[in-house]
């Protein structure tokens, strides 16, 4: 296992380099000038000359790439053209939004999806089975922006004066604040990687409120997280439900399950302990892929619900030709996918001893 992990990590280096090179090139190939994207009709020649010199865009492409690799090697992701701030700061600020949304969405998708799949498999061809699969199909079919807008309108406007009302956007209600962990714990002077880590976790409002005992803030943050989590998690939910159903049906038809039943093992134990565990292998793969996709940022959901996460940041950066953020965010996505794939593979071996990592 350790050798496998090390080899995979080493193999990820050329993968990441390829991703960096590809994004660097593509960002500069797409039509549009960053100066004009920034200043519009106020972009005079002198302004753009100064702009290009300031951001090194007047240099040959190859030289720009070498400079970028050098700064990357020193752990510097550069400065955002649009915000004039370090890209790393912007990522630390916005990544927690995406991570928090992803975790919430995946919890929703896995819990509900596996449950639906399980029920569907047990009650195969029953109205319950048909019903759950209809829900799954709808989940896959409805565009996420339609679902998001519908959920926001339904819960915020139609149910406005009822106990079921939910906020349509944002992470906290206006006026509600959840102080950073560094402030709450008196660690304002902390610096370096520990501070980066603290700020990252601080940015996840639910986690922050939970560890600091800010129950009002926790409740408010969770209420704001509910609708976007449902919107984003519906597609993975549908896929997980269908995958769980089909995988479980296949496993429940195998000899060892028949043997367990013949030995008098209770049906619940057969399904959960024997069947579901073995059926989870492909489901774990789907969960991993979904996790990677969500971590790259759900642009539409973040836009609709006014969440400034990585997806929306990347989208807006492409629009504004903010090369630094495009490169930094894409590199982050590549790292996510590599990491998630590695974790899934390792988890596979854990779940199924027959799988040998080689």
């Amino acid at each position, binding site marked *: 296992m350790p050798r496998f992990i090390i080899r995979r990590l080493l193999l990820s280096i050329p993968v990441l380099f390829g991703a960096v090179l590809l994004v660097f090139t593509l960002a500069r190939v797409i039509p549009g*000038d960053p100066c*004009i994207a920034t200043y519009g009709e106020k972009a005079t020649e002198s302004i753009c000359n100064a702009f290009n010199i300031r951001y090194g865009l007047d240099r040959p492409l190859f030289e720009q790439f070498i400079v970028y690799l050098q700064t990357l090697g020193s752990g510097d992701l550069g400065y955002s053209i649009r915000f004039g701030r370090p890209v790393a700061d912007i990522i630390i600020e916005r990544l927690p939004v995406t991570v928090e949304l992803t975790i919430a969405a995946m919890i929703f998708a896995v819990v509900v999806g596996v449950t639906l799949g399980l029920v569907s498999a047990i009650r195969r061809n029953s109205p319950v089975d048909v019903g759950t699969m209809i829900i799954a199909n709808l989940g896959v079919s409805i565009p996420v922006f339609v679902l998001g807008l519908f959920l*926001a309108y339904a819960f915020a*406007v139609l149910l406005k004066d009822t106990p079921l*009302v939910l906020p349509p*956007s*944002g992470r906290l209600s206006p*006026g509600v604040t959840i102080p950073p962990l560094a402030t709450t714990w008196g660690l304002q002077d902390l610096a370096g990687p520990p501070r980066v880590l603290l700020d990252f976790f601080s940015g996840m409002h639910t986690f922050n409120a939970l560890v600091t005992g800010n129950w009002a803030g926790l409740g408010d943050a969770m209420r704001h997280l509910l609708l976007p989590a449902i919107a984003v998690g519906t597609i993975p939910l549908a896929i997980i439900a269908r995958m769980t159903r089909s995988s479980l049906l296949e496993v429940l038809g195998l000899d060892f399950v028949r043997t367990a039943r013949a030995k008098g093992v209770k049906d619940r134990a057969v399904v959960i302990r024997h069947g579901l565990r073995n059926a989870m292998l492909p489901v774990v793969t789907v969960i991993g892929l979904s996790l990677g996709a969500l971590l790259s940022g759900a642009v539409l959901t973040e836009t609709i619900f*006014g969440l400034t996460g990585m997806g929306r940041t990347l989208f807006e950066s492409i629009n504004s030709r903010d090369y630094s953020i495009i490169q930094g965010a894409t590199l982050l996505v590549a790292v996510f996918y590599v990491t998630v794939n590695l974790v899934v593979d390792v988890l596979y071996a854990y779940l199924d001893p027959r799988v040998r990592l080689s």
Partner: protein
Amino acid sequence: MSRTPRRWPPRLAALIATAALVFTACGGTTATPIPTADGGAATVAPSTPDASFEGMSHPADGEAPCGTAPYTGNIKKITATDQNTVVFDLCASDVAFLSKIAFSAFGINDSDWLTEKIDPSQNENQPIVSEVNGTGPYRLTAWNRGADITMEAFPEYWGDKAIAQTAILKWNTEAAQRLVELQAGQVDGIDNVGPTDFPTVEGDSSLQLQPRTGLNTFYVGFNNKFAPWDNETVRQAVAMGIDRNRIVDNFYPPGSQVASHFTPCEIPNGCVGPEWYEFDAAAAKQMLTDAGFDFDQTYKIHYRAAVRGYLPDPPVVATEIQTQLQTNLGIKVELDLQDDTTYLDNADEGLLDGLHLLGWGADYPDITNFLDYHFGAGASAQFGDKFDDITAALAQGAAGADDAAREPSYVTANELIKQHVPMIPIAHGGSGVAYRADVEGAHSSPLSNEKFSVMQPGDRTQFVFSQNGEPGGLYCADETDGEALRACEQMVESLYSYETAGTAVEPALAESCESNPELTQWTCTLRQGVTFHNGATLDANDVVLSYAVQWDAAHELHKGRDGSFTYFSALFGGFLNPPAE
């Protein structure tokens, strides 16, 4: 002589005391009443300028090299002559000076604050970009990146205190979602109502719509150096042959208007003089025939795809105009879509030989920003040869600062523009702002600088407004987007300001700015008793440094979010000590 002290008679003592009080009250300079929160007025004896005050000037020695390359700016020198007086010396007259200094980019910062919050050793990540210390009715509480900007009422504000104790500015890029937030009661006001949502807002009794006429103009331009557009009768005929109402009704959002003049009417003197030609296709076609127009030739409409407030759907509008020219006048036209990055240059260099579609959005609300920029002596070659009579009228109009006195010149200018038809003004692209119905004082501003401090959000103490996007920074000297300017305007003030919901300028941090007859020297007297949010007192050096750090590219504090200070360069002509190109 008696050893016993003499006692004053009581009545005489009282009389003397009263006289002393009267003389004290009447003596010295006139006390200045300042408004208080309860609407009353407290009088504070004005402070005499501190004799020990060392006034700053920029340049410290000498003055800017007016008219000498590479300097292209119009400011010669800025001097703090005493604690409360700043003198701006200009290279040439500027009738729009007050309109320019009212702009949000020229908010006044405390000089110590500028020194403290701008690090000369670095180009990026300046603290001043995210920290605000203005004089406005609100002060910054927190900028929750990605989420909102929270402000609280400034209790020591010199003017009318903010009504809502807290103001929160948030953002959402989707118009539909901003409307949902408003309908859900999550916010009190939203910017840029979606065009299809106007009826929804108007039909909802819990909401109110405030249309906003855009300070912009979309026009069809001619270059009179190319036939047949060198024929004035042909240009007049085309002007009469385009149904502008149809274009605005079908392709512009609610709140938009057909342009009666080139300049929007919200700008003083913008709509004086005759209105534009009425649509009359038959008469127009007859005029073309009489002028010997060649109907067999195919002409061009040049345009670009960039969406602007004055032109929300360029391909569709271009096609509509093409269709109208064909249908109404029999003119065959082909569309020529040009690259965004080169279109403006081609227009300015007079290279567009057909009709061309372009527009203009106000940089500052003075008629010179519209008429002089396009038809004045310094205008580009976009319309070909200039019309001397128009430039003369505009020069006359720019010679005085009083709007009423300038009016006759602009009546003449608009008459001549209608006669010569260098372009056809089509539309002023509008938009709208919506509020909850219980928001008192709700308004829209043609300049998109709605003032939160004058709005009462029902019985709530918190006013929440949702706009399109997050500000890039809060040091508006170095910002250009409206999202940032709106945030700054609540907290930072300029020497002058624009009236609420309008474009007329009124004194703000300056009680007055008087000019010499040539409009080349403006003397601004600062309002006294003004404090910054950090408790510092406003003085003339703050004004000098606030301008100097933008104006002088070699100044060590000439840094911001990206250091471009675009609006300063655009409105005042260029930087002192510009970098070598």
